[in-house]
C-alpha cells in the first residue's frame, strides 16, 4: 500500500451462484450456510407460492449471518464506522446494527461489491415493504410478492451471504485502523501521506476512529491515538467539512465534562494548533438533538418504519426548530430521511412533522447543508438513487428554491439544476459523482 491513495477494498466476487440456475429449489441448494432441512423448506414455500414467508425467512437468516460476521471485527470498530461511539464490545450486534447499516458496512469493508450492496438494499426495502403491509390491505388489494421478485431476493441473499461459507473482510482496512492505535505515526510515514490524498470517506473514518478511541481508551492506546490525532488533524483540518469539525469539538466537550484530563489536553493541543475552538459547543444542548435524530434514523431504517417514524419525529419537533450547530448535520439527515422516504413511499404521519422542521430551515441553513453536509451524507445520497425519494427530492428543491442558493460543490450545483428540470438521468449522474467522490475508486480486495 505504498505511494497510493487509500481506496475502498472491493470484493473479488467468485462465482457463488452459476448463471442459468433459476428455479428456487436449485438456487436454495447453494445456500451453504443453511441446513438441508432449511433449504428444503424454502423450496417448498416457493412451490406453495408462499413467497413472502420464504423470503422473510431467507432475509432474516442472511442478515443474521452478515451481522454475525461483522461482529467478529469488534463492536467498537463497527461503532467507529457507523459513528456510534457509544457501542460497547458486549453490545448485541443484532440490536445495535440495523439491516441497512449492516449492508453499508458490508460494502465499505469490501464484503460485497457496490452493485451487490445496491441489490441488497433493494431486497431489504422490498422485504420490509411486504412485511409491514396491513393484513386487510394485503387481502383487499390482492397485493403480494411476485415470483420474480422473490427469486431475485433469494439469489441476492445466497450470492452475497448465504452461499459463502465465510464472508471475507478487507483485512488491510482493519490493519490501518490498528496502526492508528498501536503506533505513533511519523509525519513522513507513507500511510499518513496516503491518507491525505485519499477520498473523504477515509478522512471521516480516521477522525471517527481516533475520537472514539480517545474517548474510550486509556494507557498506550490513548497516547498513540492522541499523538496520531495531533499529527493528522492539523494536516487534514482545512479539508475537513464542518460535520467532522463539530464532531471533534463535541468530543472535546464530552471528555472535558467527564474529567478525562489526558484526552482533554490532547484534543485541546490539536484544536489550539488549528484555531478550532469555534467548533466546541458552548453547551451540551446538542446532545439531546443528536440522540433524538439517532432515534428517528433507527426507526426509519428498521422494520415497520412508516408507522414507527412518527413517535421519534414528534420528540425531535418538540425540541424546537433552533437546532444547535453541532447536531445540525445528523438532524438534517434524519429529517430528510423521513421526508424523502424509501422506494416504497414515505410515512404519512412522519412526513408532516418533517415538513414542519424543514420549513423552519433558513436559506443559510440550507446552504450549510448543501455545502457542508450533503457531500458526506451517504445515507441521503444513496436514497436519491431510488425513484420515489428522488421525486420527493425534486419537490424539495422546488419548494425551498435551492437554485437560488449559493453552492460551492460543482456536483451539488449540477444536481440542483437537474432536479429543477426534473432530469432524472442527469440527476443520477451527479448523485453517482458525489458518492464516487466520497468513497473514491475501488480496488480489489487482497486475499491472504
Amino acid at each position, binding site marked *: 500500500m505504498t505511494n497510493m491513495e487509500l481506496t475502498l477494498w472491493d470484493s473479488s466476487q467468485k462465482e457463488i451462484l452459476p448463471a442459468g440456475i433459476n428455479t428456487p429449489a436449485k438456487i436454495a441448494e447453494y445456500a451453504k450456510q443453511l441446513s438441508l432441512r432449511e433449504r428444503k423448506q424454502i423450496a417448498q414455500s416457493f412451490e406453495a407460492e408462499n413467497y413472502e414467508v420464504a423470503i422473510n425467512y431467507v432475509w432474516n437468516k442472511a442478515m443474521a449471518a452478515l451481522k454475525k460476521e461483522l461482529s467478529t471485527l469488534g463492536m467498537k470498530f463497527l461503532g467507529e464506522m457507523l459513528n456510534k461511539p457509544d457501542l460497547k464490545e458486549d453490545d448485541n450486534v443484532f440490536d445495535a446494527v440495523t439491516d441497512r447499516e449492516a449492508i453499508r458496512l458490508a460494502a465499505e469493508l469490501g464484503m460485497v461489491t457496490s452493485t451487490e450492496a445496491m441489490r441488497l438494499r433493494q431486497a431489504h426495502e422490498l422485504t420490509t415493504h411486504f412485511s409491514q403491509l396491513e393484513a386487510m390491505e394485503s387481502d383487499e388489494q390482492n397485493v403480494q410478492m411476485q415470483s420474480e421478485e422473490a427469486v431475485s431476493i433469494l439469489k441476492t441473499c445466497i450470492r452475497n451471504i448465504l452461499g459463502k461459507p465465510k464472508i471475507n473482510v478487507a483485512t488491510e482496512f482493519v490493519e490501518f485502523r490498528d496502526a492508528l492505535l498501536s503506533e505513533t505515526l511519523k509525519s513522513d510515514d507513507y500511510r499518513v501521506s496516503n491518507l491525505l490524498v485519499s477520498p473523504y470517506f477515509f478522512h471521516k473514518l480516521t477522525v471517527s476512529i481516533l475520537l472514539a478511541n480517545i474517548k474510550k481508551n486509556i*494507557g498506550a492506546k490513548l497516547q498513540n491515538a492522541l499523538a496520531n490525532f495531533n499529527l493528522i488533524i492539523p494536516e487534514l483540518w482545512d479539508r475537513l467539512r464542518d460535520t467532522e469539525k463539530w464532531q471533534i469539538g463535541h468530543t*472535546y466537550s464530552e471528555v472535558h*465534562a467527564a474529567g478525562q*484530563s489526558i484526552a*482533554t489536553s490532547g484534543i485541546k493541543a490539536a484544536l*489550539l494548533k488549528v484555531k478550532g*475552538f*469555534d467548533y*466546541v*459547543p458552548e453547551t451540551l444542548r446538542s446532545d439531546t438533538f443528536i440522540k433524538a435524530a439517532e432515534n428517528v434514523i433507527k426507526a426509519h431504517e428498521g422494520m415497520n418504519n412508516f408507522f414507527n417514524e412518527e413517535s421519534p419525529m414528534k420528540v425531535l419537533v418538540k425540541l424546537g426548530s433552533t437546532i444547535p450547530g453541532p447536531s445540525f448535520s445528523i438532524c438534517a439527515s434524519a429529517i430528510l430521511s423521513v421526508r424523502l422516504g424509501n422506494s416504497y413511499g414515505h410515512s404519512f404521519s412522519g412526513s408532516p412533522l418533517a415538513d414542519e422542521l424543514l420549513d423552519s430551515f433558513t436559506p443559510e441553513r440550507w446552504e450549510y447543508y448543501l455545502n457542508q453536509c450533503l457531500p458526506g451524507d451517504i445515507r441521503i445520497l444513496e436514497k436519491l438513487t431510488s425513484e420515489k425519494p428522488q421525486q420527493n427530492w425534486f419537490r424539495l428543491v422546488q419548494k425551498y428554491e435551492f437554485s437560488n442558493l449559493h453552492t460551492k460543490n460543482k456536483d451539488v450545483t449540477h444536481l440542483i439544476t437537474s432536479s429543477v428540470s426534473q432530469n432524472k438521468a442527469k440527476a443520477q449522474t451527479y448523485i453517482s459523482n458525489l458518492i464516487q467522490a466520497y468513497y473514491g475508486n475501488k480496488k480489489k480486495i487482497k486475499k491472504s
Partner: protein
Amino acid sequence: MTENITFRTQLIGSVTDFAEACGIGPLLRPAILVELIVTLSKYREEGSKLFPDVYLCNDIEEALKLIPDHDILHIGTTGITEDAIKEILKKCAPLANGGWCIFIEGDVKKLNYGMFRGPLNPLAIPIDETLLSTGATVKVVKVYQVAEDCVEIRSYVGGLHRIYFSNQKDTSPSPMQYLGNLVDTICSKVPMETRESVANFIREALRNALLRAHGSLIVVCKSAKIPKLLSDGVHLAQPIDFAKQVEAVLDKEALPSSLSPGLSLLIGMLNSDGIVVFSNDGKLLGYNCFISLPTKKVVSAQGGARRRAFDALCDRIGKGLQAVFIQSQDGGTDFRRVKND
C-alpha cells in the same frame, strides 16, 4: 525617629518579573497585581470571609471558548487604576459562589469585569487545568487565596508565586502541595477506566472543602473497614461511594447533579471536628473520628491536638492505614503514606 515598614515595595519588586513574563499589558501592572493580592489575602464583605477566584486576561471571550458549557455575566467597566480593584471586588466578590469566578479583562484604557463559570458538571476538568495550560494562545493569570494568609498567582506560562502574609518560612510547602498525593492514594484502587475522572472529582471537592475548613485531618484506610483505633467516631453504615457515583454518571445512568449531595456532605464533614476517613477505593467511610493519644510516649512536644493526632496516626501507617493528611489552621499541610506505595 519614626520609620514606616511595609512590604509593599518588596512585593512590587517580587511580582514585576512575573507580570512582565505574562505580557498582558497595562492590566498586569505590578501595582495593580499587588493591590489585588493584598486585598484578596483577607477579603471580607459584611463580616464574612470571601474566597473569590480572580482571572485576569486580555480576551475573556477567546479564553472561554476553551471551556465548554460555560456562562458569562458582564458586570461593568472601569479605568485602569489601583482603586479599580477594590471597586471590582466590591461588586463581584459576593457573587463568587457555586462555581462563579471573577474575570478582569484589560485593554489599553479600561478594565471590563464580571463573572463567569465553568461547566456545571462536577466531573468536568477544572477551569485552571483548561485555562492555565494553553501555551501562548490565550493569556490568563489567576489570583486567589489558597489558604488563610496565603495568596497564589499563577500564569498561563507556568509562573507561580505564593505570597504568605504570615511568619511562614521561605521553604514552607504549598498549602495544597500534598493534595495530589492524598487524592492519588484515595483513588489507588479505583478501576483504571474511571480513575482519572474520580480523582479529578475528589481533588476539586477536597480543594474547595479544605479552603473553607479550619484545619483538617484525613486518613486513608487499606480496606473498607475503619480500623479499631478510630472506633470513636461516626462510621457510615453505608459509605459514600464516590467512585461508583462517578461511574454511574459516566455511564449516563445518573445525572451529574447526583454527585452534589455527597459533595455537600464531604464539605460538612471536613468542617466537623475530628478525622475524616476514606478507603483507597474512593469511598468515604466516616468522620468525626478520634484517636486516643498514647500516654507513655510523647509523640510530639510541639503543636496542637490535631498535630499530635497526626503524629500518632503516622505511627499506624502500614497497619491498617495507608496514608495520613493534615492541614493545620494556618494552612500548612503534611502528608505521610506507606513507602513504595
